[in-house]
């Protein structure tokens, strides 16, 4: 009887609840190795520029004179190559994705050693965000 197959499915769906994650109430769990975004501990950075040279999408620009390290989050494909080549291991992959932006320029994230606060951005994009909605 087809009707009983249907009843089974209906009751199961009623008991189990929705198959999707009810997002704002339940936070999505990221695995420890999820490639979310590239972070730079700028205090340890020696501005050697190896990451910029190795980057397949040319997302990283490093300036040794001005002690600046800049990444375009919208270009970055999070391939982890920069993390692998970094000689001081100051680069790391965070397991949370970069926050969504509405303009291309907001994807730029500039870090420099000169300023007192290490985390700054030219387009007002906070760098140390961690858990974004």
């Amino acid at each position, binding site marked *: 009887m087809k009707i009983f197959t249907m009843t089974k499915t209906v009751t199961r769906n009623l008991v189990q609840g929705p198959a999707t994650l009810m997002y704002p109430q339940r936070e999505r769990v990221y695995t420890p*190795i999820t490639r979310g975004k590239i972070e730079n501990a700028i205090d340890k950075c020696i501005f050697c520029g190896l990451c910029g040279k190795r980057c397949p999408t040319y997302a990283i620009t490093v300036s040794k004179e001005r002690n600046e390290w800049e990444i375009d989050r919208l270009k970055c*494909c999070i391939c982890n190559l920069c993390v692998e080549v970094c000689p001081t291991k100051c680069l790391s992959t965070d397991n949370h994705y970069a926050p969504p932006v509405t303009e291309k320029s907001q994807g730029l994230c500039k870090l420099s050693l000169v300023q007192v606060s290490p985390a700054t951005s030219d387009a007002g994009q906070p760098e140390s965000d961690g858990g974004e909605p």
Partner: protein
Amino acid sequence: MAHKNIIPIGPQHPVLPEPIHFDLVTEDEKIIDAIPSISYVHRGLERLIETRDFLDFVHVADRICGLCSFMHSLGYCQAVEEIMGVEVPERALYLRSIWAELSRIHSHIFWLGVAADAFGFESLFMQAMRLREPVLDIFEETTGGRVILGVCKVGGVRRDIDSDSLKGIVQRLTNLKVHLEELSNVFINDYSVQHRLSGIGFISREDAYTLGCLGPMARASGLAIDMRALGYAAYKFLEFEPVVETAGDCYARCLVRIRENYHAIDLIRQAVGKIPDGPFDVKVKGAPDGEYFSRVEQPRGEVIHYVKGNGSRFLQRFRVRVPTFSNIPAMIRVLKGSEVADVPNIILTLDPCISCTER
């Protein structure tokens, strides 16, 4: 004689996820000719090899397509390794096979969903998308990415999977198999699905052979063409047999994909049972000098990667021949003589992957 009409279908069409265009020459409801046109989103990835280091190019090869991402990087790495004479550790070969088979499961379940959507079975589409999720979760836990894995590299793989996780993967796939059986039952036994698929889009064994069919399209017509039989990666150590159906219609192509899902789960179970300990990558020195054709079985058929190097870090030529491209002549043959209402079904059962075709 009826009046001839040309009905354009695509590049934007509800059942086509990607841009491909057909001019269908029709007489009443019958199609008498079909003229395909591709290259709406050509990206020029092959040319990029001249400006990228050959080791970094793996990441570009990975991004040729989303559904068969791992197979592309695998094919490219195999070609470069063969030119350079790199001996890949056995553990890396097994891990490559495991990820390749997981990609196949993920792609075939996705296809089942899209096919269900094409013949108007919305809830089946949702169920298929739900079943695909555990595979994506396995990808994220083992590689760090859900779609673009980025684990293959020249000389091995980037990440290892420890034995507990491997056993966990087999356990989760066994659970998935139970749900998959339930889903497959609908595809195999449901009256409306059968009505929509069986007898539609028939291609004979001879036609499939002469028109150069590949993948599930060829295997549904009774041709046992499967590149895994060549024994690349770890397939030489596994008990592998191509899945072949003989009916040659849309229903047979659907059955091939359903059976391949189970076969892939079985191959992963075998690989986990046999995987040896040891290193999972070797250091690569020098640059490739020479040329090689690497053949890999994608979910859609055989993909050929041609790599030519001249001893520098920048390779001279990279070419990808994707299965969708060689299936297009067969698609035209199938479309001729079919009804207009069956066109979306026929196009989808070939599983065209335009992002592969327009790399």
